[in-house]
């Protein structure tokens, strides 16, 4: 997969963020086992990051094809609503999973068809579902916050396997499966080719339309999974607030991970680290005892700092600087 060296900037940023939080609240790194389950702030980061991490996996592929998926938050609300409705009606968990995942897939395919076959700009094509999706979710729940009590389904959000909380396992597994799928086959390379130059890739025989459709479908699946985790976690579906603005966090995670919004080279691992950075910031601000009003400001400042360092303009400047230094070093 991605070479470790290419992940240095993201790993460094994550390390700095974690270190700063550790300095402010020393208890941050302590992990204990209670009732056969891991507990601690670090574990909490891993659990809370699950929705954004899952979305980031799908979003990375979409962005690599030079697209964007604004609808993932709304898809989370839709799938969460349908899952809650089915669970509340007493349907068994496998049925619920199957229906919700298929619905996510359908949403993804809808976006994919609009982008790949009708050639509609991704940002607009997915805006449709982003705007209408919450209305559809409200339609499913009947405008109320549906609650349910089903230990089997709640396991997705609050259970643990061998002491590790389920959400962590789910996002790690999804990242691993999709990562292996695109990097152990030629798929990843082809997706990058489509993102860099769709016409050229089509001319050499890449089935660009199909690939683009597939990336949106995967994004829809990831959103469905994220929606179910959130629903299982809060034991209910809130069509208004489930996944609200998470599409923006997911896009940020991908951008922090170094995948360009202009498409091309991507790294799922880096996006996952990006998601971890965002979540560490959230958790860190929360447990450091700062007033929550600072949350958004700190987040904005850190993000601007990271993005500025990665921006093409600064990268050029740094490149020039590096060349100058090298030349100076070579002279004597």
């Amino acid at each position, binding site marked *: 997969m991605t070479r470790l060296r290419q992940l240095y900037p993201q790993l460094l940023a994550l390390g700095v963020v974690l270190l700063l939080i550790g300095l402010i609240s020393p208890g941050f790194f302590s992990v204990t086992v209670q009732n056969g389950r891991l507990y601690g702030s670090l574990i909490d980061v891993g659990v809370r990051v699950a929705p954004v991490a899952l979305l980031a996996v799908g979003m990375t592929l979409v962005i690599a094809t030079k697209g964007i998926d604004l609808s993932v938050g709304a898809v989370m609300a839709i799938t969460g609503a349908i899952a809650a409705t089915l669970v509340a009606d007493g349907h068994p968990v496998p049925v619920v999973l199957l229906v919700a995942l298929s619905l996510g897939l359908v949403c993804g395919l809808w976006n994919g068809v609009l982008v790949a076959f009708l*050639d509609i700009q991704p940002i*607009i094509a997915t805006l449709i579902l*982003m*705007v209408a999706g919450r*209305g559809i979710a409200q*339609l499913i729940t009947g405008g109320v916050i549906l609650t349910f009590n089903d230990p089997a389904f709640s396991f997705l959000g609050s259970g643990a396997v061998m002491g590790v909380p389920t959400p962590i396992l789910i996002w790690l597994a999804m990242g691993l499966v999709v990562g292996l799928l695109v990097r152990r086959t030629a798929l990843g390379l082809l997706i990058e080719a489509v993102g860099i130059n769709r016409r050229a890739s089509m001319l050499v025989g890449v089935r660009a339309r199909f690939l683009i459709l597939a990336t949106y479908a995967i994004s829809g699946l990831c959103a469905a999974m994220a929606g179910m985790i959130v629903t299982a976690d809060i034991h209910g579906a809130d069509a208004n607030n489930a996944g609200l603005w998470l599409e923006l966090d997911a896009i940020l995670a991908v951008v922090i991970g170094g995948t360009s919004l202009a498409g091309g080279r991507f790294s799922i691992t880096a996006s996952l680290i990006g998601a971890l950075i965002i979540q560490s910031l959230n958790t860190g601000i929360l447990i450091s005892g700062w007033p929550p009003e600072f949350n958004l400001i700190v987040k904005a400042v850190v993000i*601007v700092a990271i993005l500025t360092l990665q921006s093409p*303009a600064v990268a050029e400047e740094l490149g020039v600087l590096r060349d100058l230094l090298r030349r100076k070093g070579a002279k004597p």
Partner: protein
Amino acid sequence: MIRARHLPFLATVLIFVLAYALCVLQFPNMLSFRVLGNLLTDNAFLGIAAVGMTFVILSGGIDLSMGSVIAFTSVLVAVLVRAGVHPALAFALALMVSTGFGALMGLTIHALKMPAFVVTLAGMFLARGAAFLLSTDSVPISHDFIKLLKGLFIRLPDKGKLSFLAILMLLAFVIGVILAHRTRFGANVYAIGGSEQSAELMGVPLRKTMVQLYAFSGFMAGLAGLAYTLYTSAGYSLATVGVELDAIAAVVVGGTLLTGGSGLVLGTLFGVLIQGLIQTYIVFDGTLSSWWTKIVIGLLLFAFIVLQRLILLVSERRAAIRSAAGG
């Protein structure tokens, strides 16, 4: 002759008139200056914001910070007035801050060569966070000057009122139309939206235009914030979440291409009015939930996007035929 690129605009106007006629058929009371006046007043802040958004989208960019800037200016004004500052001074200060904020985002987008999407997203967090810092509670405003402004209106027939807010929004659209079609700035924005590279080669000052553009959009967001403050008589940092999406939807339904370079400011007015009309219909009906608004707007968005694709395809084919005949 009707130009093909004005077809989306004409379609929007037609849809608005047809939809209004259908509403009136069902509820004859909707055909009154009172309803029309309220339609304008209730959507004033959205309309003002949408003018700014139209320019940004015409340039091929996007401004996601709008809803947050609206909330920020309304909280800023409320806090300043509470501290004893005269509202007029508070208004001026708020507009200066929002314009400066927009200009800074424009400069960042240009200087760092980063997508407008990402920069204005960070701006969205920043403005919302700044609003939280000022106050997390809803801050009520009561001042004679505010009451005076709220009391201003032009009387229309049968108890209708064209309120100060409605006039402000219509004024914003007039300014927008003049800026877009009668000034160099407007021409530059259209040129950048058509092709940034060509515009630069033709001598359009990119940096200056980008800064002006986002400053204008920030100014309009600030003005929308003032309108919102007048409308609700309060400043609340959690208000107007997602208004930027409504504004984008209004712009697209109004016939502006999201890729930039093509569209009319006046179309946005009808985009806003269509959204308002759906809400008014839901209020009149009484049994439908307000989330139908979202679904209908989504469907409209879809219809318009497909319409624009078709027009583009037809005009491309026509151009191809013409060039084939010429060559």
